[in-house]
C-alpha cells in the first residue's frame, strides 16, 4: 500500500523534483502550488500525509493548515519551513500539524517522518475500521 501524499509549496521547481523523487520511491504524490488549489484537490482525493510550506504568498501555511484541519481528512501535516523559526513550527503544531522539517531537507529524514506520519494515519484508520466492524457486529442483531 503506497502512501498518498500531497505537497503544497509555492516553489514549483522544488515541488516537482521532490514529487518525482518521492514517486520514484513509490509514493503517490500530488502537488499544489497554492492553498486554494490544494483544498480543491483535497475535495476529490484522500491523502495520508500533506507536506505544507509555511511561507507562501496568498494563503500562508498556517492558514492553509487551519483550512485543511477543517476538512474531514485524516491526513497528518508535515510543516516545511525554509525559515528556522521554531515558533512558527510550534504554532503550526499547536494547530494540529504532526511535525516540521527545515529546508533544505534531507531526503532520508523526510522519508522517515513521512513513514512515521503514515503509520500513525494507518493506525488511526485501522482503529476506525475496527470501530466500524465492532459497530456492524453489534448491530447485526444475532
Amino acid at each position: 500500500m503506497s502512501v498518498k501524499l500531497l505537497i503544497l509549496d509555492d516553489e514549483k521547481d522544488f515541488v516537482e523534483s521532490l514529487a518525482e523523487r518521492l514517486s520514484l520511491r513509490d509514493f503517490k504524490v500530488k502537488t499544489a502550488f497554492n492553498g486554494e488549489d490544494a483544498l480543491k484537490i483535497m475535495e476529490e482525493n484522500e491523502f495520508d500525509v500533506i507536506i505544507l510550506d509555511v511561507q507562501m504568498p496568498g494563503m500562508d501555511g498556517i492558514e492553509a493548515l487551519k483550512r485543511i484541519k477543517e476538512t474531514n481528512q485524516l491526513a497528518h501535516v508535515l510543516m516545511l519551513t525554509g525559515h528556522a523559526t521554531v515558533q512558527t513550527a510550534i504554532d503550526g503544531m499547536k494547530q494540529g500539524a504532526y511535525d516540521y522539517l527545515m529546508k533544505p531537507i534531507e531526503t532520508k529524514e523526510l522519508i522517515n517522518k513521512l513513514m512515521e506520519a503514515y503509520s500513525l494515519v494507518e493506525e488511526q484508520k485501522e482503529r476506525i475500521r475496527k470501530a466500524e466492524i465492532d459497530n456492524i457486529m453489534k448491530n447485526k442483531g444475532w
Partner: protein
Amino acid sequence: MQFQKLRDFISNKFFVIPEASSSPERYKALRRNITILMLFVTIIPLALMATINYYQYKNSLQSEVINPLRILTNKTKLSFELFLEERISTLKFITSAYSYEELNDENIINDILIVLKKEFDGFIDIGLIDDKGIQISYAGPYSLEEKDYSNQPWFHKVILDGDHISNVFLGYRKFPHVAIAVQSYSDDSCCWMLRATIDTKKYNELIAAMQLEPLSDAFLVNNEGILQTRSRLFGNELEPCPIEIPVGGGETNIIEATDNEGNEIFIAYSHFVDTDYTLVVVKPSSLILKTWFTFRTEIFFIFVGSVLIIMIIVFKLTDIQVNRIRQAEEKHELAFRELEHSQKLSSIGRLAAGVAHEINNPLAIINQKAGLLQDILTSGSGSSNSERLLKVTQSIVQSVDRCSVITHRLLGFARRMDVEYEELDINEVINDVFGFLDQLALHRNIKIERKLDDSLPKISSDRGQLQQVFLNILSNAYAAVDEGGSVCVESYPKGEENICIAIKDDGKGMSKEEMSRIFEPFFTTKIGYGTGLGLPITYGIVNKLGGKISVDSEEGIGSTFTICLPLKSKSIKIENNE
C-alpha cells in the same frame, strides 16, 4: 569687526579643543586653557583692585600728610614776615617820633636801643646814617661811628624802596645777623635813614617753634641759594644750599626730590613777599609716608597671598573638572563603542539571516534536483557515464549540505530562541562539555586544567545554550593550541551577583585587529573550514542570557575568553532578528 575678530580668536584659542588630537594632549590643552582663563578672570580684577586701592590710598595719604606740612610752612613764613614787619614798623616809628637832631644825640639813641632791647627781641645795635651813607650816630656794642655805607647796595635800595631787610651776613662782627634799614619819614629832611641789626637767633627760635621731627629740617634761603639759617641737613648759615628751590609762586608749594644720599624727600617752600627769603621745610618721605609703606607692604602680601590661594584652587579645580570630563567622555565613548558594536552585530545578523533565508529556497531546489538525478541514475542501467554523473551529483549534494550547514547556523545566529531557565551548576555544564571533547583532547594530547570553584552558587540559566557557548569556545581553544598545548578553565565568583568562567589557552593568539572583529559574523581565521559564525552565536547567546563575554589575547602567547553570567536571570529583550 575688530571685536568680532577678537571674540573669534578667543573662542578658537580657548574653547575649541581640537578633536583630532590624541586624548592626553587634548586634555592637557583643555586643562591649560581652563587654568589660564580662570586665572585671567580672577587675578586681573584682583590686581586691578589692588592697583586702584594702592593709588587711591597713596593720594589720600599724601594729601593728609602733606597738607599739615603746607600749613605749617605757611604759618611759619607768616611768623617770619610778622617778625620782620614788626621790626621795620618799630624803626619807622622811631624815625617818625624822633628828629634827625634828636637821634644824632648819643644819649637819646642809646636810650632808644635800651628800650628796643627790652621790648623787642633781637636788636643788637642801631645807627643813624646821613644822606651820604655815613653813620653819624650809633648805639651798640661796637664802635661803628663814621662808618661809610654809601657803597653798600642796600643803601641805594633803601633810598629807592624806603626800607630794606638784608640777607644774613657776618659783617664786621663775625656772627650772623641781619640788617634792617628804613628811610626817614620826617618832613624836613628826606635823606637820612635808621639802620638796626638783628640777631638771627630769633630766626632759629621761629624755626624751632615748628617742632619738627628729628629727621626733618627747616631753614631760610635767599634768592641766590645761600642758607640764611642753620640747616641740619645742608650746613651752616651763609653756605650755599645744595638743593635748588624753584623761583616764583607766592603760595606754599611742595615738591618731591631726592637728597644727596638718594633718599626721597618732600620739600615745602614758601617765598617771602617783601624780602628775598624763602622758607624751606624738608621732610624725608619715609617719615611722612611711614604708614603708607606699611600699607603698601600689607597690600602686597595680601595680593600675593590671594594670588597663591587662587592659583592653588584654580589648579585643583581644573584638575578635578578635567578629570571628570575625561572620565565622562571615556565612559561615553566606551558605551558608544559597545552600542555601535552590538548594533553592528545585530544588523549583520539580520542581514545574514535575510540572505540565508533567501538562499535556502534555491538551495532546497538544487538539493532536490540533485537528489532526483541521483535517484534516476541509481535506478537506471549502470553505464560508465552514469557512474561519473553519480559522482558529480554526489559532490553537488555534498556542497549543498555544506551550504545548508552555513545557512542553518546563520539562521541560528539570528534566531530568537526561547530561553528555558533552570537552576544549574555551572561547573556541571562545563564538565559535560569537556565530556564531548575528551576524545579530541586525548587525540591531540592537549592538557586540560580545570580550576573550578566548587563553592559557586547555582545560577539560573539555559543549560543547552550554555553548553553551546562552552562548546564553541572550547573548540576554538582546542583549534588554537598546538599539539601538547594546554587549555585552562577557571570558574570564580565576581561580586555578589555574577560568576565568571575564564577559558585560557596557550595557542597562537590573535592580533588586536582580529580581536576586535572576532564577534562579527563570517570573520574567520580558519580559512576553508570555518563559517565565522561560532563566536557571533556565542556572543548572542551570552548576551541573551544577560551575561557578558570578553576576550583578551596576545599574539603568540594565547587567548583568554571570559564569560560572566548573572546569578539571577534578568529577562533581557533581544531584538527580534527575523
